[in-house]
């Protein structure tokens, strides 16, 4: 028990760092859900693209890191836009089941595409500033500060976008009532396109700061964890995602840490924690910890 308490600062640091990534992915889920009513099962693959593109541009092509990062985010955003035009727009009148299967298909497709071009198990995306520093009770990589800083910046930008810009307000209108939005002259299908571009950019950003490693297989995990974060925060509540992501990040470190240090359970079970939290939250508090009540149309 003492050992566990001694490790706590380290768990908190790791949990916050991972939590920030989940915040970005979860915001992507929510933005798409709000404007189209779809849960995009390929959301995690946007993170994969972010990481792999950053690797390709920074390491293989040798561009300076800030430029490579920016281009990687833009390229991922483009992937999101293409996906929306090619697949989501034609399915705009289809049912939930169809949308689920199509986005699952897209996720498998992206994952394999990543595997064809980047077949190894792991690619080391360079850190913005390598090295670590010590806090009382925890060793933290310097990347950690970048992760927190960039997440704060992304959340702030998204907030400004939704509260101050015309396009952002139009997207919020879509999430309230799509038909009414159409009637006041908002181009709903264009908003759907914007939401995919924005969500892909956020996912890509998460992927490229999730250094040190990116791989073709990271999408599924990122997707499930990001979705869990968005459900914990209340699906569709864009800023609930911030709380949800951080809570999930912390729980994901603390629960396995406790089980391993105190009860001696193998660390291999860590992969199941997020999925179990997801199922538990869906069953017992589907509206999320701070969600508004869920209304289901029949």
């Amino acid at each position, binding site marked *: 028990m003492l050992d566990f308490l001694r490790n706590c600062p380290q768990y908190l640091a790791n949990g916050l760092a991972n939590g920030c990534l989940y915040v970005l992915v979860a915001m992507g889920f929510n933005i798409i859900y709000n404007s189209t009513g*779809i*849960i995009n*099962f390929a959301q995690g693959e946007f993170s994969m693209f972010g990481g792999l593109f950053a690797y390709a541009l920074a390491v293989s092509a040798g561009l300076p890191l800030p430029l490579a990062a920016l281009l990687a985010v833009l390229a991922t955003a483009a992937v999101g836009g293409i996906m929306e035009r090619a*697949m989501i*727009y*034609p*399915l*705009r009148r*289809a049912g*939930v*089941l*169809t949308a*689920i*299967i*199509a986005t*699952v*298909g*897209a*996720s*498998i*497709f*992206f*994952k*394999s*595409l990543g*595997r*064809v071009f980047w*077949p190894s198990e792991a690619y080391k995306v360079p850190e913005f500033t390598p090295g670590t520093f010590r806090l009382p009770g925890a060793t933290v990589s310097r990347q950690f500060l970048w992760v927190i800083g960039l997440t704060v910046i992304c959340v702030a930008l998204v907030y400004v976008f939704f509260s101050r810009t015309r396009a952002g307000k139009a997207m919020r209108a879509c999430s309230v009532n799509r*038909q009414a939005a*159409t009637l006041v002259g908002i181009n709903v*299908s264009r908003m759907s396109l914007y939401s995919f571009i924005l969500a892909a950019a956020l996912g890509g950003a998460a992927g490229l700061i999730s250094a040190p490693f990116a791989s073709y297989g990271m999408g*599924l995990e990122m997707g*499930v964890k990001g*979705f869990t974060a968005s*459900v914990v925060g209340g699906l569709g509540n864009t800023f609930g995602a911030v709380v949800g992501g951080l809570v999930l990040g912390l729980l994901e470190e603390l629960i396995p840490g406790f089980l391993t240090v105190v009860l001696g359970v*193998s660390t*291999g*079970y860590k*992969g*199941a924690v*997020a*999925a*179990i939290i*997801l*199922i538990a939250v*869906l*069953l017992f508090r*589907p509206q999320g910890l701070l969600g508004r009540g869920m209304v*289901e149309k*029949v």
Partner: protein
Amino acid sequence: MRDTPEDGKVLRYGKGGGPLSSAVRGALSLVRSYPVFLGLGVFLGLLPLWADYLSRPLGIPIVMVMRLVGIYTIAAVGLNLLMGYAGQVSLGHGAFFGIGAYTSALLCVKAHFPPWLGIPAAVVVAALVGLAVAPVLRLRGHYLAMATLGLGMVFFVFMREMTWLTGGNDGLRNIPPLSLPGLAVGEGRNYLRKEYHFIWVIALLVLLFCFNLVRSRSGRAMRALHQSEVAAEVMGVDVSWEKIKVFVLSAALAGLAGGIFAHIQGYIDPNLFTIVLSIQLVTMVVVGGMESIWGAVAGAVVITFIPKVVEALPKWLGEVPRWVEKYSNYEGIIYGLILVLTMVFMPSGITKGLSDMISYRRSPFVNPFRRRALD
């Protein structure tokens, strides 16, 4: 009413009309109203006699692959009941397949059960696990899809980590071949043929059962769920009970398929039962056509043969394209494209698309890009 053998024929059932009694009645009327079934049975029964002549020139071991098709048919038909007929998505069905495989394999390897006892045990265990996780059925749509995906992940992690039981990543070896009491099936001369017949007899029985089930009273209740749960409830359908029933049945069928699979492979490990398998099963259901029993068969055939055809390509072309060697890398691209393109251009699947084309002389494709009002 889809899939009816002859349009306009009223299918009357007496009181109750549960799946079992209707299966008995169905068996009696087999000769009269199921020519397709008899045809398929005869065709499949005779297939090994001529398949070998085709296998060599094609470079595809047909009988060997058809065994797998039979196994996947059993699982896909169960998933189709759940997804196509009852409208409940499951992205974790590979886990039930895995549970069946592990149950039978463990009983046979560690407790020395004969396979013909291990496989029924696999069905029972998979059904019980299905019953245990049935609370997720309170969820709908996206939530249900994500929750079942999560269940699949949890299953995989546990199979990998419970090394004392499952052997972890090293898997289980020396699983005995199929057998019936006093009769070896998976050994000796022509063992592939014997396994093939064994599997397809079971698969056809499963198909017959499901065929009658969807026409029975509970089958109609199940299909009512798909349209509208509220309307079904109003009409007196016990919605949550019907959902649990179909979920447990589809889990049991996946377990049956998994149990057989373990014995024809002789070796299993957790990596065989990941999300990839779940997606494969979903692809079979979607491609063949949801809400269609024959669709599940068609889907199983198509999805199982694609990799074999790709592997045989060099033999046909006389040269080896570089990318064939790493087929597993491309597998996902093919599945992903199939799923997306089917949903966009042929949302009701191959069987429906083709039968519409034949009976109404219209294109099997839809044009989703056509603009309409309010776009």
